[in-house]
């Protein structure tokens, strides 16, 4: 309880600090980011059986630690928030050494309570992902919640670190496959290079 209160207080202070701080961005400024990093399969939840399997590898999610690369573009619609999109490519080898791949592309909303030499960003994304593994492939929904920071040693170029949670549901139309409908959670950890103007 005490820990939760501390975290909540810290978040409120952060937001308050951000709102009280002078903004670096104006409406119309833009952010271009290039990301590379790794992804950690975290859980798979099967809706029909309420089974939740967690962890990496065999007898768990079946997926191993993977890699991700992506590009994003955002435009500030207010001095503290930006909208845009991101497209990327994720791969994770499975326990059987076959490859799971995901190509997420999604709309993105980012709130930057702290900005300037250091940007702290909280973003949410909603869109689609094309996912494939062995004989299964589908276009499905995709959502994420991410947070991270970017350090700008100069005016335009910055280096950042981001993490969060991706959610990828699988809804099958085929009656035989409906029992396998599931929601997968993946935690990314990515380094980014950002150009702002």
């Amino acid at each position, binding site marked *: 309880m005490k820990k939760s209160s501390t975290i909540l207080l810290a978040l409120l202070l952060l937001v308050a600090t951000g709102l009280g701080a002078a903004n670096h961005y104006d409406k119309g400024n833009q952010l271009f980011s290039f990301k590379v990093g790794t992804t950690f399969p975290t859980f798979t939840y099967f809706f029909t059986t309420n089974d939740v399997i967690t962890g990496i590898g*065999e007898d768990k999610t*079946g*997926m191993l630690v993977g890699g991700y690369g992506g590009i994003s573009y955002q435009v500030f619609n207010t001095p503290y928030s930006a909208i845009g999109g991101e497209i990327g490519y994720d791969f994770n080898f*499975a326990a059987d050494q076959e490859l799971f791949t995901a190509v997420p592309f999604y709309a993105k909303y980012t709130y930057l309570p702290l900005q300037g030499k250091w940007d702290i960003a909280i973003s949410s994304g909603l*869109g*689609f992902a094309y996912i494939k593994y062995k*004989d299964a492939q589908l276009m499905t929904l995709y959502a994420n919640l991410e947070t991270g920071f970017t350090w700008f040693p100069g005016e335009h170029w910055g280096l950042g670190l981001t993490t969060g949670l991706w959610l990828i549901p699988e809804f099958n139309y085929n009656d035989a496959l409906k029992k396998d409908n*599931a929601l997968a959670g993946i935690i990314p950890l990515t380094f980014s290079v950002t150009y702002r103007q």
Partner: protein
Amino acid sequence: MKRTVCTTIIATLFVALLFTACNADASAGLFRQLADAKAPVGIRYRQIIGKDATDLYYLTDNGIYKSTGPSSTIVRENAKGSPVLEAYLDVTGANNYLIYLINTNDGAMVYRYNQSNKDDDNMRVTSTLTSCKIKALLPNGSILVQGLSGGKNAYAVITHDYENDTVKSEVVFDDLDGFALDGILFQSGLQQVSTNFILSFVNSSKEYKHFFNNKTNEIKLNSSLAAYTIETKLYLLTKNGALYGSDVPAGSTTATSMGKNSKMYPSNAFLYAVTDGSTTHLLTKSSNSEEGIYVFSFTKGSNAADSASGFAIKEGYARQMNNVSIVSAFEKTPGVILVATERNGMFDLTINAANANKNDTSNGSSSGPENYTI
């Protein structure tokens, strides 16, 4: 600007929505398949060769091994460029010869490996056919050859005395001009010891000929066969998932359609029969490695039309049969079998015949991979 970006994003998402969830061709849900993924054990099995008094012999991509269950040792490592393709354990003599087939520049050759002195001797395979070529070493030790009989395409199955390197007997399948070999079928789990087999041939018009043990015993069925087994009657599984039954052939026989599933089966698919005295269950494994075991059940001894019911089994003895490809099987006792998989190791399956078509733990159990006993 803002409106343009929003419009573009919304349009993209709308188009993408039209293509969501098109997973219709998958054998199982994508994340289910991932959750069931099994790590390869590092052994690529090709065949369970047989068993002598103490050891189980098996063939992998590396060569021939023998195992006591807990530990394995290599018996004959593959020579570079000429891997052993098929093998047989001859326990009829005193030497427990390993018989194997390799491809050479002169075609397929059958060799006898003496485990005592490590000698490899080329077997003199002779036939009544002319222009004769070795086509296969069968898992029961017989040798399939192709040649000419009376100037026409013919095949012969030769039983060889490996101790003395002489031909014991020969069964000829002649008058097969225009026909090519479509399959050499053995009963799963019994292929090392059974003298029964089915030879299937097909011509360019997709006409099939199936012979049980000899040319007189022809099974009339114009479809490509994946497997067969005998449990009171003869049961045939086609590559497109249809089950047929007939009397065990003694002369020409016509098979009756007993049921069908929507699965595809490879040549020499896994097909194993168990019976509880009143009901026969045929366990099958399709070409799709992601699928578990599919069971056909029917009254024991029946081959009545449309009498078989189908059951998809993933629990109990089939618990570890998802995401594996069975390449060979060996029956230890009725209902207790070893199955070797292509990449995922060897498993013990214990099948409770009374519940063999129930998708729960009452149907039996499995152990493995590589945790088997002999």
